[in-house]
């Protein structure tokens, strides 16, 4: 089964993977284990972790069954290979820590090889907060296996029992005799390959000495000196610069193009291949000039506008998708019966806008063809996925394509696709030399993909004590992540309805959990208001999950929720959520002035993701999520009209800046008794509903659309009419 067919079961929201290639061009080994010596540990996928690698392990071990490998060389250097990509979440550091911990080797002796389709085993992609819960334990086991093997080697050498040996700082020592050898010396002259032992004991979190601590970003020095080369910084001998002709609006196709003026320029290559038109030249400025000299005629088709977005999203897609996106509704008991006898019923609708990822490094790729083999350096979260796209676009077997991912200038779920890599490769093929293509910010806004917009209907009923008796929730288009309620409702109907999205959409940090949590938590607040209960108290009455309760109480306590009294113009809000195995609760305090401007004064967040691997990096991720979340909650929205993006620049699309910073207080609950979950996504989900609650507390205006206040809070009268439903 191909990777693409498998994906819908795994994560039904990866819309962009179902899209066809942007272009179809006319027709026109791996040697990673050829290591000289030393100790090699292979991490072979099992059924249990097959999801992570995208395949199941059965039969003989082949390249495709490998999830990772670890090599200890004769000079003691440890090389660890994984197909994961570093996009700012600091997994290069946290995975290095995991290996150092189990191998008992110095951090500096460990080198991570990541995201290179020739050098690393297949990996489906870096998304879904999966590196820490799935890849890290595999690497830990690999490191522990290597450590035990090295102990055996030393035991043989000295004729002693392995149990009498101590491993530390990259050496095996026999304390009784004082004999000691470095790892490299132990491997000398031999090549030992071992497959990962399943029963290898791992160091429990409470005994971690390297993991669980804050160690600085391993290649941080290269970042502060500007030495690190992102894909957009790479050069190759003889390299040219490319640029691509873009249509004026979504859905426009090329009727004809006069390329004569551009082609008349010397030192310029113009490529026309189906709908693809691009230019390469020795200088970027020359390529841009030649592109501007192209005379295209576009055929446009009617395209939707933002103002009818939400009505559109409610309509079922045509034809009905057959790819499993819809899924079955989650039904418990009978919502209809429970609603009819409920003490109080409430119905409300919430919307979320399309937002842009705005990775500060736009899509970039350097492509080079040598003897029919293609190498592309590019920033992506899916190196192997992009390799597949390239192979498909150029009708090549995958082994003729290599994708290398330098540590990338962020993604947030926005860099799963390989369109820039494909374009660069097409230009390089025509130019007969390496070509670099860097998307402009405007191209990134217009032609990448967005976080899905959505409409969410909630219908609930509570008993006289404010306990949920019925919960019905329908999400149109935005997605099914975290769509289930963590609150104990005896009767439930929860359903995701796919739609035909007028804009290209795809993954965004924590997927639809932000939208679903916004709707759910806002509705819980509305129920509290209807029942004249404190929002925290209403949640307590409905929340059984002890981990979620723990973060909620911790955040409320730290914030001083019990004593926080809202008044006109000054409000407090609270929200919680769980997704991807981690738990968050956020309290906030806002000020709304007479003109309707919203100022976030304070964010207090409690977060729990099992055993903490690197406290400082975790705190950094939580902070980043909270501040990034402010943008989507308050002001970020992609505006469009007739298929044209109206705000495709940073001067028109506002993202959070220093002046938006509130006072931030983060509590990390370290559960050393629980496995570590990923943490780069979930902390975002509490921000929007907490802010909506705080704005309601300050203004009596219940805002049900994200972004909440792109132009401030509407005046009360206006708000009242908006509220009427």
């Amino acid at each position, binding site marked *: 089964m191909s990777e693409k067919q498998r994906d819908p079961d795994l994560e039904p929201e990866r819309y962009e993977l179902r899209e066809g290639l942007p272009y179809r061009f006319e027709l026109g080994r791996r040697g990673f284990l050829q290591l000289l010596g030393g100790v090699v540990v292979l991490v072979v996928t099992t059924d249990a972790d097959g999801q992570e690698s995208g395949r199941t392990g059965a039969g003989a071990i082949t390249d495709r069954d490998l999830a990772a490998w670890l090599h200890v060389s004769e000079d003691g250097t440890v090389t660890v290979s994984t197909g994961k990509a570093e996009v700012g979440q600091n997994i290069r550091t946290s995975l290095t820590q995991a290996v150092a911990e189990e191998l008992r080797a110095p951090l500096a002796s460990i080198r991570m090889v990541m995201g290179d389709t020739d050098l690393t085993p297949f990996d489906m992609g870096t998304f879904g907060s999966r590196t820490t819960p799935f890849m890290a334990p595999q690497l830990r086991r690999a490191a522990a296996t290597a450590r035990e093997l090295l102990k055996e080697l030393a035991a043989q050498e000295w004729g002693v029992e392995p149990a009498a040996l101590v491993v530390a700082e990259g050496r095996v020592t026999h304390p009784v005799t004082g004999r000691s050898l470095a790892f490299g010396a132990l491997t000398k002259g031999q090549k030992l390959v071992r497959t990962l032992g399943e029963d290898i004991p791992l160091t429990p979190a409470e005994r971690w000495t390297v993991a669980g601590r804050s160690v600085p970003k391993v290649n941080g020095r290269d970042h*502060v*000196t500007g030495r690190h080369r992102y894909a957009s910084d790479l050069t190759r001998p003889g390299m040219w610069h490319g640029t691509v002709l873009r249509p004026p609006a979504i859905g426009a196709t090329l009727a004809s193009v006069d390329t004569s003026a551009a082609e008349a320029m*010397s030192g310029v290559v113009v490529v026309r291949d189906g709908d693809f038109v691009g230019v390469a030249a020795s200088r970027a400025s020359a390529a841009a000039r030649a592109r501007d000299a192209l005379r295209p005629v576009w055929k446009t088709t009617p395209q939707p506008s933002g103002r009818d977005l939400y009505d559109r999203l409610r309509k079922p897609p045509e034809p009905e998708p057959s790819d499993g996106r819809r899924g079955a509704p989650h039904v418990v008991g009978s919502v209809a019966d429970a609603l009819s006898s409920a003490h109080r019923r409430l119905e409300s609708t919430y919307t979320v806008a399309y937002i842009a990822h705005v990775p*500060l490094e736009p899509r970039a790729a350097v492509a080079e063809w040598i003897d029919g083999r293609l190498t592309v350096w590019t920033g992506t979260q899916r190196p192997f996925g992009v390799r597949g796209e390239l192979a498909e676009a150029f009708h090549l077997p995958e082994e003729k394509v290599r994708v290398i991912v330098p*540590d990338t200038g*962020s993604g947030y779920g926005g860099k799963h696709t390989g369109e820039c890599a494909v374009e660069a490769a097409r230009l390089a093929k025509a130019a007969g030399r390496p070509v670099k293509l860097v998307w402009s910010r405007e191209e990134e806004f217009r032609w990448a993909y967005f976080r899905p917009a959505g409409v969410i209907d909630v219908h609930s009923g509570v008993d006289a004590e404010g306990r949920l008796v019925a919960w019905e929730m329908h999400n149109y288009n935005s997605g099914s992540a975290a769509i289930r309620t963590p609150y104990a409702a005896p009767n439930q109907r929860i359903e995701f309805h796919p739609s035909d999205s007028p804009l290209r959409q795809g993954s965004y940090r924590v997927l639809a959990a932000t939208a679903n949590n916004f709707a759910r938590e806002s509705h819980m607040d509305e129920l509290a208001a209807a029942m004249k209960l404190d929002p925290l108290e209403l949640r307590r009455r409905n929340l059984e999950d002890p981990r979620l309760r723990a973060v909620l109480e911790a955040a409320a306590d730290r914030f001083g929720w019990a004593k926080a009294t809202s008044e006109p113009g000054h409000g407090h809000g609270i929200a919680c959520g769980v997704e991807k195995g981690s738990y968050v609760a956020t309290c906030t305090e806002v000020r709304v002035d007479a003109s309707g401007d919203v100022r976030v004064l304070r964010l207090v967040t409690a977060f729990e993701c099992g055993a903490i691997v690197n406290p400082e990096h975790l705190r950094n991720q939580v902070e980043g999520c909270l501040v990034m979340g402010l943008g989507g909650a308050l002001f970020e929205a992609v505006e469009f009209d007739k298929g044209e993006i109206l705000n495709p620049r940073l001067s028109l699309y506002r993202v959070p800046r220093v*002046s938006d910073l509130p006072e931030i207080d983060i509590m990390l609950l370290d559960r050393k008794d629980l496995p570590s979950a990923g943490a780069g996504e979930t902390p975002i989900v509490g921000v929007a509903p907490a802010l909506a609650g705080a704005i309601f507390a300050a203004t009596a205006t219940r805002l049900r659309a994200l972004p909440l206040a792109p132009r401030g809070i509407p005046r009360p009268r206006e708000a009242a009419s908006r509220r009427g439903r």
Partner: protein
Amino acid sequence: MGPEHAVASLELTVNGVRRRVEVDAEESLLSVLRDELDLTGTKYGCGEGQCGACTVLVDGRPTRSCLTKAVTVGGRAVTTIEGIEENGRLHAVQEAFLEVGAMQCGYCTPGLIVEAVALLRRERDPSETEIARAMEGHICRCCTYPRILRAIRQAAHAARPTKENPR
């Protein structure tokens, strides 16, 4: 007209070194630094002076190199992130960014550091407001702003004269 029509020879002083480069009249300083001089620490982020990733110093003043035509800086001193280290030693601001972990993906980091170095040269002990104002023109999309501010504060404190080390 060929694409090379507007190319002119220009002498630039970058990080204290005189460099002769061929430039288009319309070419930005950013393009010339990155594509002609291979000084890629200076980043492209938006092309309209909104994000600050392309910040360099021109005669000591923080300047958005994406909006600056290369031909306008001939004869002036350009400092990029590659010129911030002193004798192979990290500048206090670089040290502080590392220590505080004021980055995630690191793409905005060079622009921020160059801006902060200029700030600390202007103002030895800047107030919170001055730091925030200087950084307002920079986007860190990973949103590590709290750490960025802390790192600059820390660098300012480190640079403060002490009894043992009067500057």
